[in-house]
């Protein structure tokens, strides 16, 4: 129960940020989406450009060189949505270091904040990431198989991680593992310790950001690598990232909707635009309705997180809903374009491939 009113009004600041992020998404992300997908790589210089958005800088305390803006899951979700409207892969890439930064701020010690955060306040893009998912069919965030054990004053990590965005290059990796006798824990991996192997992945979609498989074979980390003073709030981390993943879904689905509306209004068959037919128009009506519902589910979870309320159930339901409906919208996007939708002449097939990831992704884009 809350004394706040139900309200869907964005703050002036959120509105202004949305405008500039949307502009950036159109000129820098949408324009490069196809090239990035074709090459299975982020175009050169792209990440440096993202620095102008100040994504990483924002939440870092002023004393450490950042802007010291309070973390706002709602504002972060809006940014993820707006970037993803340009391209989901590049949005994911842009937001990946923020997942590392936010989690260190959220759950790290002061010493860790002082050590790692200033490097994100410079002129260069710093590739940092979180290694969370594991490569097996029934992977579940609640059952991590990557293990950590204490050995003297070191931690020894073993296991495999997958779909690690920027994982090929990142010099800072937060790896989440099950610490023997304790439960979930996160460790900061610097550089390339012995026993860590990285290999580039190629996936169905999300090809614009380099994904990696990481394997940890008796990787030894110093005691100070353990994030925070002990346990890792895995649920909070997973839930905040679920909100981010939902926001990616909302942005991409908005791009799909905008595109099919224009296409179906222009495409003529039997002497009139195909959108004059109910069979086409009703599909679009349903897309628009479910998309709005996806956005409201995402906002609700984000607002609950922002207010400090328990938001686990909301984040879970939002992810469940967005996972289901984002794929449906992606599929319908291809369908509505007919044969054109199946070719790379149009972006519908790219969105379809990217949207398949929504139900699968976990632990990315922590808002």
């Amino acid at each position, binding site marked *: 129960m809350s004394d706040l*009113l139900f309200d869907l009004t964005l703050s002036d600041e959120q509105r202004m940020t949305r405008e500039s992020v949307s502009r950036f998404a159109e000129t820098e992300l949408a324009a490069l989406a196809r090239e990035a997908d074709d090459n299975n790589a982020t175009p050169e210089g792209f990440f440096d450009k993202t620095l102008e958005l100040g994504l990483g800088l924002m939440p870092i305390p002023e004393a450490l060189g950042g802007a010291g803006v309070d973390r706002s899951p709602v504002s972060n979700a809006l940014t993820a949505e707006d970037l993803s409207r340009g391209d989901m892969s590049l949005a994911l890439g842009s937001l990946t270091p923020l997942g590392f930064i936010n989690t260190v701020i959220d759950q790290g010690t002061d010493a860790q904040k002082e050590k790692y955060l200033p490097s994100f306040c410079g002129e260069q893009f710093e590739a940092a990431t979180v290694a969370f998912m594991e490569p097996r069919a029934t992977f579940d965030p609640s059952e991590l198989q990557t293990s950590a054990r204490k050995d003297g004053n070191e931690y020894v990590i073993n296991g495999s991680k997958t779909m690690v965005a920027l994982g090929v290059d990142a010099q800072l990796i937060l790896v989440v593992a099950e610490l023997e006798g304790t439960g979930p824990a996160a460790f900061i991996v610097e550089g390339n310790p012995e026993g860590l192997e990285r290999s580039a992945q190629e996936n169905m979609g999300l090809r614009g950001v380099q994904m990696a498989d990481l394997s940890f074979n008796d990787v030894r980390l110093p005691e100070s690598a353990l994030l925070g003073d002990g346990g890792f709030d895995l649920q909070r981390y997973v839930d905040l990232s679920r909100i981010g993943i939902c926001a990616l879904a909302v942005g991409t689905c908005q791009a799909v909707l905008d595109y099919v509306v224009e296409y179906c209004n222009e495409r003529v068959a039997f002497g009139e635009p195909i959108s004059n037919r109910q069979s086409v128009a009703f599909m679009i009506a349903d897309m628009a309705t479910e998309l709005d519902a996806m956005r409201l589910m995402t906002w609700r979870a984000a607002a609950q997180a*922002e207010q400090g309320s328990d938001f686990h159930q909301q984040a879970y339901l939002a992810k469940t809903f967005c996972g289901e409906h984002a794929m449906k919208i992606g599929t319908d996007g291809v369908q509505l374009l007919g044969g054109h939708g199946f070719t790379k002449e149009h972006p519908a097939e790219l969105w379809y491939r990217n949207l398949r990831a929504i139900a699968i992704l976990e632990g990315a884009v922590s808002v």
Partner: protein
Amino acid sequence: MINLELSSKHQETADNLRMMAEHMMRPYSRKYDKEEHTYPKEMEEVAKVIGQNRPVASAKGKPSDDGVKNGSNMMAVTAYEAMCWGDTGLMLAMPGRGLGNAAISAVATPEQLKKFGGRYAAMAITEPGTGSDSANISTTAVLDGDEWVINGEKIYVTDGDRCDVVVVWATLDKSLGKAAIKSFLVEKGTPGCEVTRLEHKLGIRASDTAAISFSDCRIPKSNILGNPEVARNAEERKKAFGGVMQTFDNTRPPVAAMAIGVGRAALDLAQELLAKENVNVSYGKKPSNLSAIEAELVSMEAEWMAAKLLVQRAAWMADNKQPNSKEASMCKAKAGRMGNYVTLRCVELCSSLGYSETDLLEKFARDSKILDIFEGTQQIQQLIVARRVLGKSSSELK
């Protein structure tokens, strides 16, 4: 500031009404489902309790510092949800809460309000040959001296038998189309106005649904609602009928909220029955790692919540004077299909217990079906949403 939780005041009303629904409606659910067409007199007491608390009328809502309001529309969807969690049929049989009352309070003159405001009013729109295309009605009203003479046949008049007054849609001249459609206040007992039949229905059996015929039914000239002039040009004509149809923008979210209520009722009962077999809703493992039945339960929770948020958004927009025609139709479409799906699926998941009349799951399913039909069918809502999204006129997208 983005916040999608009910305010404490609205939540309190929801909790109170839910409790009342549980104790004063649920005990009669099966009785009046069985005894179709029997007046559920116990609902008078419920109406009295609601009247004393005036949750709807008093909820003007103080704006927050930045001028945002949660007012009567948010209160209406909150109340409808709670009462339909109790029983959709009985809620519809609540005296004095008919659609006709909504029309009267929206457009009546002060004199009409004085005379008809406190009466139990039904709304008669549909005809045997005219459903969703309500601009095509054939019932006529002809001015004869100081009286209107009404002729025609109306069907599916909710509360048609028990009401005191019927708001009748009739045309002054069918050749003039939409612009000539007006609504009239006909008091029951007026010669020529006769209830000819009560429908036997799939669900909401506690609510009486009447066919009413009007043969040379004479009513005072002052009983016309709204402007008696027929618009002369296309612009005015569009505006005139648009005004009539706009009342639906305000009534669709409450009807959508009814689907939220009955959907919740089914989910609650199904979860209670399944818990006895150690099947529980949990938000632990991700859906693809759950058993089929567990995954179905969380998926239905998600669909239910999504529909509810769409309803609340439409109500919030109305409270804050934002045009919400598209959003009202979106919420009605989503809530209607969600309600149908969820209630029917709950019957299936609970097997013979769902199908049996011992429990209420099968009744919830039957009751929910109408919510995807009246106040605009699923398909009509899709049409409205599609036109808005695609920027099409009704002649382009038929």
